[in-house]
């Protein structure tokens, strides 16, 4: 409750400052350093995570702010699944969010492709999204500033009445110089989506607009088109349909990736995103029952609930409710994941493609980062 009134004062100040700060963006450059996606619904970046990020030399964090989906009720695109900033004020300001203040955050928005199946107005949507992002930037910057009893910064001069004590806040704002849009566009929605990308560029002067490029869009570029963006992120994962029982590994399949990357060069500067995630695809009598997020080899190996069948496939040994699905004895789980060796090899392969300027990882997961020796992959790739 302490400092409650300050909130109002500072928020007012924040709004005034933000407009001028946004005009002072750094020049858009090709990014360097190790980057990660932060794809959770609530933001919690604790001290240990910050230490890990610093040890990796993390510079940029693609932070999913919200998704955009179609609302059949309102008959318009709407923001959904907004990132919960944790309402950092809870009796005192916790520093969980403040820890991301030292990195460059790239607001990232996932747009469900069906939005572009509708007859939307690209300029209106771009304006709506840009405004929402700007609001989030302010909220997030505000939380990264050192308003509370931040014991780690106790010796820094006290804030709020001295202009330079707002530095953590202003620096954070100034570092936001890019917005990334993520959409699995199809030839059918391509034109509307590209028009929207252009509208985003227009609505955000001084900001780089990047977008994700899926492997099929990279390979089938003639049908998919080249997105009118400042740069792209090539998503080197999700290579096959997880629902398909015949899929070998939906997250990563070396044979498939070679096919996708055959036509190596691309007319857009790219960052390549590598997978640090996994799931178990659940099947009952060959019928897909759902995904068990995060399930990995180490979770099933030696677990009496599972018996190995073949590489990456396990059978349930008893009836159980697993990941909200009722799995019967004999049902199968297929582990979809890239091994640490595969991720390292993929990075090596990508380093040979000129268009790929940098690599990033999907998504922020401290235990996997350690397991996959991400710092070494970053170091090796270093461009």
């Amino acid at each position, binding site marked *: 409750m302490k400092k409650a009134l300050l909130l109002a004062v500072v928020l007012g100040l924040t709004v005034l400052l933000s407009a001028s700060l946004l005009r002072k963006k750094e020049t858009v450059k090709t990014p360097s350093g190790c980057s990660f996606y932060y794809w959770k619904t609530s933001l919690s970046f604790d001290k240990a995570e910050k230490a890990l990020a610093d040890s990796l030399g993390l510079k940029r964090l693609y932070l999913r702010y919200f998704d955009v989906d179609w609302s059949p009720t309102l008959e318009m695109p709407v923001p959904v699944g907004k990132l919960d900033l944790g309402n950092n004020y809870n009796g005192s300001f916790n520093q969980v969010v403040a820890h991301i203040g030292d990195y460059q955050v790239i607001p990232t928005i996932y747009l469900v492709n069906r939005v572009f199946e509708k007859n939307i107005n690209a300029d209106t949507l771009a304006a709506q999204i840009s405004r929402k992002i700007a609001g989030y930037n302010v909220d997030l910057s505000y939380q990264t500033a050192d308003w509370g009893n931040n014991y780690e910064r106790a010796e820094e001069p006290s804030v709020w009445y001295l202009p330079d004590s707002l530095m953590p806040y202003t620096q954070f704002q100034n570092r936001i110089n890019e917005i990334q849009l993520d959409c699995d566009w199809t030839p059918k929605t391509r034109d509307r989506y590209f028009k929207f990308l252009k509208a985003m560029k227009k609505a955000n002067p001084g900001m780089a607009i990047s977008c994700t490029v899926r492997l099929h869009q990279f390979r089938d570029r003639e049908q998919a088109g080249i997105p009118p963006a400042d740069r792209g992120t090539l998503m080197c994962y999700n290579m096959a349909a997880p629902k398909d029982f015949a899929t070998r590994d939906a997250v990563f399949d070396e044979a498939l990736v070679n096919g996708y990357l055959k036509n190596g060069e691309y007319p857009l500067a790219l960052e390549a995103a590598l997978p640090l995630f996994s799931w178990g695809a659940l099947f009952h009598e060959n019928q897909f029952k*759902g*995904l068990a997020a995060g399930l990995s080899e180490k979770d099933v190996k030696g677990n009496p609930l599972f018996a190995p069948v073949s590489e990456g496939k396990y059978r349930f040994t008893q009836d159980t409710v697993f990941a909200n699905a009722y799995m019967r004895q004999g049902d199968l789980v297929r582990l979809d994941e890239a091994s640490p060796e595969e991720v390292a090899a993929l990075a090596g392969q990508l380093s040979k493609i000129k268009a790929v300027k940098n690599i990033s990882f999907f998504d922020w997961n401290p235990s996997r980062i350690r397991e996959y020796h991400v710092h070494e992959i970053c170091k090796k790739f270093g461009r």
Partner: protein
Amino acid sequence: MIVFLGLLLPLPFANACGISYIGEDYRVALLNPYVIGDEYSAFFYSAEWLNSYENDKKGGDRKRNCEAWAAYAGSGVTASEVRAVLYDTPYDDLLNAVSEGVDANGVNSQRFSGNAFFQFLMKKEKRAALDYLLLAKGYEQFSSLESTDPWADYWATDSEKVMSESERGKKDVKSKMNKQFKLVKDPFLKRRYAYQLLVMSRYDSNAERFEQLYAEHFRADKKDALSAWATFHRAAIVEDSLEANYLLALSFRDCPEKRIYCYQHFKKDLAIRSLAYCKNNEEKAMVMALAALRNPGRALSQIEEIQSLDVNCPLLPLLLVRETNKLEDWLLTDEVTGMGTAFYPEENMDEKWEWSTDQWAEYRKLNKQKDGQYLAQVRQFVVGVASQKGGALSGDLANLLVGHLFLMEKKGKDAEKYLQSISIKATPQVTEQQATEQLLMLMNKSDITRPEVKAELAELLGKLGKIKDKYRRGDRDFWVITLILSQEYQQKGDLLTAFFLHNHSLELPTFQRNDYGTAYYELIRFLDWTATEKDIDNILALLEKKDKTAFERYLTAAPLPSRNALLDLRGTISFRKNDLPAAVSAFEKVDKDFWKTKYEFRYHLVSDPFTVSRDSLKRGVFPASKAEFVKRLIDLENEAKSNPSKLTNNYFMLGTAWLNCSYVGKTWMMFSYGNSVMENEMERWFNYSYQPTSKEMKDIYYGANRAFEYFDKAKASTKEKEVHAKVDYLRAWHQSLSYKLTQAEEDEMHSLDWDKQGAFLLDKEMSYFREWAKAYKSTGYYKDRVTTCPVLATYYGE
């Protein structure tokens, strides 16, 4: 001179325009109420109206409803698959999923991959079930519509538009539901349509239609969730308030998702009369339990009655945990935090200041005695419950409560017997609570200064630290435990351990911390004005110790001041005592640029400490470091002693420096870590607690005694009138800045118009210069002063 009068002191180190804590920020609760699970967490004891404002959305009513749907769908559909569609999916997402449909292989939309219930709904022949669900969810959506433009800021919501859209949507759904109700033949769906129409008739205040639907579809069958919800809605439409009260009590039991409404609308004053509607003792116990739940005071007599009516009343554990938490608040919150019993400030702020602290203290003492007696009564009752078999309170929980209550009474031996009876099969929450009990037991029964006890404490604190974020306010409860432990060590004279434990609990509001504190000061507050140089040395030694014990490792993991800050404090402690060589020795170990770059030193240790001037244009420059400044003081004193010709000048300079290091001086930050207006006038300036605590230090800081000792020596060493003029001027100046109005003067000032009050104060301030002006009119210093200070000239000019 103008600047002297304007009280233009440095800005206080305020992080806020005002400080207030809500009671829940600091209420002491050593018994985690979650020992009974989280089903009733909204109703745990709280200084606020409710502990949380969320109904239990995973309760038995929703579970039964999902099970009913799963049974209806058959084909291996599980209740959790139903829940995913029914409760975990917004209406729009369901509509999108339905429009995506299923692919050629019968695999459905991404959202419901593998969900057999969704597949069931997507079957052509089950269209009627899907239609019902879409209508029901649609009605829910329109009933709770918040915005028609989710892109707009919430304050820009067009509420009229939202209202009309909501009404339009509901009307549309209602008409479709009425139509379907008549058409549908499937009894499962028919009953559900009946329920929806019953709810609508409640909100339309159509009692006749409500009763007709209720009688036809729900009165006879009380088992399923729909009947329970129908009964809940009936409580809102029946005219008899006693019957409504009775129905609310039943609904509180049967409808977890409606409990907050039931709690809100239950009239505890009608509870006894509502008993007439009860058909058995179980129902009577529920009515009484809801009344007890609404009781913010002592509820033991009600609990006893409930126990006698129905030992299985599901609210008994909640009520006993509430009673224990109440007692902890009444007995311990003030004792531990000094903040009084937890309260919600907005409601009680006026009353708080109506009486003096002393008047309240008397009643606090009296009430504490009564609470102690009540604690024994509650404990006796729970001992009785623990001796019985069966009932709503499990044996483990009863033993835990008795043990906990005994520990509150500081009867460790009695507590031990019960706590040891807790079985290894106790719930995880009870097991977790045992760590707290063990820690309290160690404080109660063991010598906490012994190494083996410290090792045990380290283990327990580690355990508790790991679970503190698991429960709402768990962090607060953990800070309370560390603060209590800190206080125990302090009582035993172990300031070192007390300091570290204290800093583990820094986020807990206490009376001492109820101020405009900075993070820097929070870290050293415990030590400032309390610690000796030796204490600081001990802290530094522990921090540097290589092979720390587990307890020491725990201690030193607290938020701590840096080595520089500790050495600065050590030097400051010596400086305050005028042990200047010791001060230099400490200050010299601090990084050279520390005071130029860190904390507020950067802004407040900037002026020349050997020149008295409030004028910012004549600041001069502070020496290179605190150490250099103090060395200069030592040199001046030594030189004065060894060279009589320098005596007057050097003592005058020393006086000037100490005056600057006093409350009114520009270099006050040599002596204190904060500075605020009027802090010299009050024992405890509200929301400000940087002040010295001893009379000696107050005299030096606020009274500038040490400065005037030097000035007097300077004066005594010479007959030169100019020197006397300067010294006496500075005394008058200090008095004009430090005076406190007498009560008579206060009254006189307040009797004046507001615009005259400034002049009154100016007269008062200038009065201190009267004698000086008379005595030194002929001096050059007098002329200099009246020339540079126009106000002085106005009063005492030629």
